[in-house]
């Protein structure tokens, strides 16, 4: 209810005796929240006592007890709910081992399914903790612990790497499965990337056909160059690019065994060399981001080649080129100037389009536009897969352009141009010839320009047969401002959009009824007004002035009291909230770059980035530089891998 007070009202309150009342209300409000948290914690502790402690006792303590506990992991002190709650972080580790079925170890009595159920439910019902009180523990220092960093290449990265390595597209008939997302919402998150048999089948088929097709630089044996030497030269050169580092002699020797085996079986020289070339493309050294561990554990800086790989995945979604590898070889990439030089060079390269196509589309939730946008062909016969693909291209160009041309970041909110080709320009009623190629089109008004009015966004956030101010508003809150919008709580009575007999209601009138319900209003008051600001765009992103016979009313009023009408004023509202946008955007970019969920230690990178942005007239390229130079981007937590008997047994 506090959120409904407009600033104006607040100001008046400040000057009046009502101030005391307001403070009292606020105090009561936070007291209620604290009480709820208290109750959650109590229930969690009770469940520990009731259900979990007996499991710990019967399944864990035999080994994990006292000073001699296995793995120096003593669970004996956790005799009740209070002691369990005192070390919340520890249970993450316990849960992880149990979920991975690593604990109890094979041969020991296992948790039964009902015990696992109880345990998982207990872990997931854990109340949020006050992290600031625990800043200095060992556990929180090791922020990489528990994240997969040596992940496989995503489908996009694999495809790009093949393109850059061989100048070839993936062969027809080879299709990698799609990847999901994790962490901050990106497919670069190692924890959320999995490898199935159909991946390996595709890698194998692709390597096989690509190496046959590619115009490869294969050394020719001669009097002064033996076959073996020629093969070795060829393999060394190719492996260096494909594996992003100089290959070791032993690796070349093993590759040569493949060559010789083929040759002995009767293959000619070129055919025999192709065999190890294929193996290079199916090897984990190509398919995975290999960040192997140094002897000493703890937090270490990445090697220059590992850093080069992270950098090229970040900016190009692909593998390093010769120049970047050279900068790694010379360790120039380790110096601030050397790194900056590489970043600027890479941003200028056409491959940096990936910042729009990969990072941008994932941030905007548009990666699967072809399946998520399904306008009804009866109502929108103009919508076609070609138009969808043009809309996608518009989004790619907008995001990539801001970085590549070092433009002000806030053009993502409000720009005086759109990227369009003739088809899209016609759709947007812009004055451009129908067959015009892609170009930046200057706008007369600010109705369009920026991400919220992208055709792809307006279409993806609509239902097949109508717009949805709710979905559009939620989209702006989540993807532009980084707010959270909880789903409707369970048990909310069905929304009654009933209307007086015989009277046809507009969409807005129907949603007003919706917002009259206090349980719904708390969130819909945040979402719906933003969405209404875009009502002048129909479900496929065309400008309109009426809907279903009703004139469009694009006015909105936020809980803060801010009122606006139409997209131009809506963008002004968002520009006033640019701090939220900038912070959210940087968070997304950093999450994409690091390939993991962020934690409080990463906040310092966000703060640095915000300052760098400020110091550079809000131009975007400095964000890439700041992230690339940041501590978490250049370092990772290593833990020397313990001898693993299960691996040897394989």
């Amino acid at each position, binding site marked *: 209810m506090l959120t409904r007070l407009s600033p104006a009202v607040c100001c008046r309150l400040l000057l009046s005796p009502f101030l005391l009342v307001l403070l009292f209300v606020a105090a009561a409000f936070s007291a209620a929240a604290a009480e709820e948290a208290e109750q959650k914690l109590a229930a969690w502790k009770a469940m520990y006592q009731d259900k979990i402690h007996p499991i710990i006792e019967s399944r864990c303590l035999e080994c994990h007890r006292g000073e001699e506990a296995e793995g120096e992991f003593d669970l004996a002190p956790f005799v009740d709910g209070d002691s369990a709650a005192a070390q919340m972080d520890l249970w993450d580790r316990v849960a992880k081992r149990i979920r991975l079925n690593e604990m109890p170890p094979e041969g020991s009595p296992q948790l039964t*399914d009902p015990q696992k159920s109880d345990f998982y439910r207990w872990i997931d019902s854990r109340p949020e903790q006050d992290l600031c009180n625990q800043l200095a523990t060992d556990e929180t220092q090791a922020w990489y612990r528990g994240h997969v960093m040596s992940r*496989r290449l995503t489908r996009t990265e694999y495809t790009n790497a093949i393109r850059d390595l061989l100048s070839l597209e993936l062969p027809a008939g080879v299709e990698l499965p799609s990847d999901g997302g994790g*962490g901050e*919402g990106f497919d670069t998150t190692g924890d959320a990337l999995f490898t199935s048999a159909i991946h390996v089948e595709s890698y194998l088929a692709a390597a096989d056909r690509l190496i046959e097709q590619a115009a490869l630089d294969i050394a020719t044996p001669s009097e002064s160059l033996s076959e073996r030497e020629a093969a070795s030269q060829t393999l060394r050169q190719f492996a260096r690019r494909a594996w992003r580092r100089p290959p070791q002699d032993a690796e070349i020797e093993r590759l040569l065994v493949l060559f010789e085996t083929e040759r002995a079986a009767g293959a000619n020289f070129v055919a025999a060399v192709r065999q190890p070339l294929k193996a290079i493309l199916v090897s984990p050294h190509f398919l995975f981001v290999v960040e192997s561990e140094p002897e000493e554990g703890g937090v270490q800086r990445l090697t220059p080649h590992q850093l080069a790989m992270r950098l090229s995945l970040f900016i190009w979604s692909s593998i390093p080129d010769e120049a970047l590898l050279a900068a790694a070889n010379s360790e120039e990439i380790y110096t601030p100037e050397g790194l900056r030089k590489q970043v600027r060079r890479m941003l200028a390269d056409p491959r940096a389009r990936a910042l729009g196509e990969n990072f941008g589309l994932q941030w905007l939730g548009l990666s699967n536009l072809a399946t998520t946008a399904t306008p009804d062909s009866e109502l929108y016969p103009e919508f076609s897969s070609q138009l969808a693909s043009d809309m996608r291209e518009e989004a790619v160009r907008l995001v990539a352009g801001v970085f590549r041309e070092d433009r002000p970041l806030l053009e993502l909110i409000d720009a005086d141009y759109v990227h369009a080709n003739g088809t899209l320009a016609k759709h947007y009623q812009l004055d451009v010839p129908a067959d015009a190629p892609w170009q930046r089109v200057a706008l007369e008004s600010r109705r369009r320009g920026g991400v919220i009015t992208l055709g792809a966004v307006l279409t993806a956030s609509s239902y097949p047969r109508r717009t949805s101010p709710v979905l559009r508003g939620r989209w702006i809150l989540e993807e532009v401002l980084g707010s959270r*919008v909880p789903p409707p709580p369970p048990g909310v009575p069905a929304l009654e959009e009933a209307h007086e007999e015989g009277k046809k209601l507009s969409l807005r009138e129907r949603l007003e009824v919706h917002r009259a319900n206090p349980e719904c209003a708390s969130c819909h008051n945040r979402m719906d007004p933003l969405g209404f600001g875009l009502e002048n765009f129909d479900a496929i992103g065309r400008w309109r002035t009426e809907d279903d016979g009703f004139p469009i009313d694009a006015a909105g009023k936020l809980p803060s009291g801010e009122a606006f009408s139409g997209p131009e004023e809506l963008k002004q509202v968002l520009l006033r909230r640019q701090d939220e946008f900038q912070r959210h955007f940087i968070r997304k970019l950093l999450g994409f770059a690091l390939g993991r969920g962020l934690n409080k230690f990463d906040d310092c990178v966000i703060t640095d980035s915000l300052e760098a942005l400020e110091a550079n007239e809000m131009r975007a390229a400095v964000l890439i530089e700041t992230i690339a130079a940041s501590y978490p981007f250049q370092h990772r937590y290593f833990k020397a*891998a313990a001898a693993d008997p299960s691996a040897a047994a394989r």
Partner: protein
Amino acid sequence: MNERHLLSQPLSRRKFLRGAGVALALPALQSVAPRQARAEAAAATSGAPVRAAFIYFPNGVWEKAWVPEKTGRDYELTPSLEPLGELRSDVLVLSGLDKKNSHGGDGHYAKTANFLTGMPVAKTTGKDISSGGISVDQLMAQHVSGLTPLPSLELGTEPVISGIDSNVGYTRLYGSHISWQSPTRPVAKEINPRLVYQRLFGRGTHSSSAQAESYQNLLDFVLEDARQLRPRLGRDDQFKMDEYLDSVRAVEKRIEYATRQEPREWEPTLDPAELASRQPGIPRDFREHIEIMMDLIVLSFQTDSTRVCSLMFANDVSGRNFSFVDGVRGGHHELSHHENKEEKIDQYQRINRWHVEQFARLLNKLKSIQEGESTLLDNSMILFGSSMSDGNRHDPDNLPILLGGRGGGTIETGRHLAAEGQVPLCNLYVSMLDRMGVEVEAFGDSTGPLAGV
């Protein structure tokens, strides 16, 4: 290592692998020409095996038009089940089944990822993803692995949903996977029918063994790479390398299988011309996509290329436009939130009914294929269902579940079996595992086999 393959493989693998004159295709699972003599030998010694398919559709159903009032043999076909028609005698209608580990968590993701595991889904946006357990189809696949060219098929129609849902704290990939090889490993699904067909039947009949050996050598090489690399990686990274190792081994097994000499337990013959004629085209729309995917299930079962299959009609929360169904105007998820309004319920129910029509079409095709005295349908168990009941309420109890086929004559179909009082869906899985020859004491949250099946 390399010599093993050069010297000890009497049969050349290559003929299964290489299309005439084309660059290498995916390894074919079986040669297209029927191995007549071996098939006859096999048929003489064993009957047709039991097959199982698990077909998921999103967004639940309108229960009042789905669940029959009467139980037992005399149940009435409700409006949504009407498309079953004569097939009612081949189907077991199940109601009252529950998934207790889906009562908490999110409305969708915590219900879909564990549709076939029955265990709690870990609440996470990425770190430590877990569906709580192995899925029932994958457990079956483990047990029949080695009897067929492919242990299982995982099919779908849509790419994995990208991104996370930060509001509810789940990664959206949970809504795209029902098959889990282990609690922490979802199995990628194939959505392109042509690739499924190629995977099953390869490209041509003239392949060379030397090429197969090359493949094998190559895979041995990369396995060795991964083995050497693994101990140099961090603990969490090692698990990812294990996925790679396991996947490479699975492909090796496939190639080995294709070169096997000994007769298969069950090897039905199929006219090569017919097989070729059933090569799928590119689906023009969703309806065709579903139809083709189901035909591929029929074909893979008919040829005993696999005995276990999962299919997701769509990912969870799918907003697919269903206006192609008579009387429907709108998207699936949107209409499933019917808000108890009649006009929306009617459309929601029509979408449910359309799904049952597809199921019936699949059953009819399976039924049209004779296997000795019985039909392919008689020897199958086709589970068809959703991970919630009413899409408006998102309840994981009274799940809409149909089971087609008699599981090799061990299931008494033609009835409506109403479970009393929160019986776990996993009890049905225990019963199905039993029919598949997999003995388990318990599965997921099961309390025993499902009474009355």
